[in-house]
């Protein structure tokens, strides 16, 4: 498996380049942030995983955006989600953000974050408290690392967030009252003007996406037919998502400077 993956990487991966301090303006108009990537509704999911590029996520300048223009945030995640989205998610990924009023960990560095949430309106969650997926920093990213496998997994009474074989954080299964239905592999922005993924010259990769349908079972590989157009998707003129034509388990996301 690793050998195959290495061949994929060798064939398709550009050398990692640290992006930072770009003077570009991004046209993202999702006032509350938005997402780009792929999601699969399957009905019952017990885990999601994919290799994530460890390059620094692209940073746009915030010039010209209408609000919160000092705050910037971009991220990439593997996740299991519940009905109707919202807070019903367990996610593990990487984040780059600036603005301590957003999170105490938003200092501009690239970090690993685990997050989970629940909504009392979800079936099975009546009487529970409302928890938004705020996230906790579980480590820093070394941008010289090769792509690493990020994973959300239900096992042993816990929902864990993993990098490689190491469980970085977890939440009790009893805290997740909603039904895990979907797999999601996506980039997400915090608000206006933020970038998705990498740059035109250095795309951000998700590779070898997999799902786990049964707790304790085997991971299944599947092909992604195409990127998902979420309801608040960023302008496709500038925000790009592509599934590899020769291997539909791999996805690239990037933002054009303009």
């Amino acid at each position, binding site marked *: 498996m690793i050998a195959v993956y290495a061949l994929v990487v060798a064939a398709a991966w550009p050398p990692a380049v640290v992006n930072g301090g770009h003077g570009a303006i991004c046209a993202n108009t999702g*006032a509350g942030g938005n997402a780009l990537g792929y999601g699969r509704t399957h009905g019952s999911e017990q885990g999601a995983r994919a290799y994530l590029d460890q390059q620094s996520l692209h940073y746009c300048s915030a010039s010209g955006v209408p609000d919160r223009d000092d705050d910037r945030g971009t991220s990439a995640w593997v996740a299991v989600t519940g009905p109707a989205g919202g807070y019903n998610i367990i996610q593990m990924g990487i984040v780059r953000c600036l603005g301590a009023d957003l999170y105490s960990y938003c200092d501009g560095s690239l970090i690993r974050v685990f997050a989970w949430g629940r909504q009392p309106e979800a079936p099975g969650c009546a009487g529970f408290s*409302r928890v938004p997926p705020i996230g906790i920093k579980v480590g820093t990213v070394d941008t010289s690392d090769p792509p690493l496998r990020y994973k959300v997994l239900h096992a042993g009474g816990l929902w864990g967030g993993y990098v490689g074989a190491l469980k970085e954080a977890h939440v009790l299964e009893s*805290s997740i009252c909603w039904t895990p239905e979907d797999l999601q592999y996506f980039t997400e922005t915090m608000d206006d003007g933020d970038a998705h993924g990498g740059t035109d010259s250095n795309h951000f990769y998700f590779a070898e996406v997999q799902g786990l349908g049964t707790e304790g079972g085997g991971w299944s590989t599947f092909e992604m037919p195409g990127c998902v157009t*979420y309801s608040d998707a960023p302008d496709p003129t500038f925000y790009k998502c592509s599934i590899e034509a020769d291997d539909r388990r791999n996805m690239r996301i990037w933002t054009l400077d303009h």
Partner: protein
Amino acid sequence: MHRLTTFLLTTTAAGVALIAAVALSTAMPRTGGQAREAGGSSPTRGAANPATVLRSLDLATDSRVGVCPGIADAANVLAAVELARGADYRLAFPKMGRSPELETLATPVVMVIYSDGYPGSVWYAPNTPPEDREREPEPGTVDICAVMATAERVVYFDVPLEGFKVP
């Protein structure tokens, strides 16, 4: 004062209680050096939460609150308290929804209580409709940033303030 009055009217049936509570609120000391401005719901002050369950924290000196954003905003931070045992969260907030992640905690939990909404951002699920990404706290509720002994943080939205008393 308008929102204070609204809260009290919804949580007490007797006019006498209203008058007493308003009088009490004018004498209520500030918690942790934070002055709460008009707006949001109002807690009452009383002996229902003994110090063994809940105690006030000094925002200026307690480093545990640092993982919660916006603590310098005195108009939004209603209080910072320490719950002696996480499992006792309903002694402090009797109307709070079920929270299994707190129920097994025998260790302290620090809570920063925001009267006008949690000031940080949320990583929504990607399939969240745009209209659901815009949020206003429910009337009569607060948001809470809870910091566990492990420094792990969980945020709770729309926690009913009814029954909470500033220690």
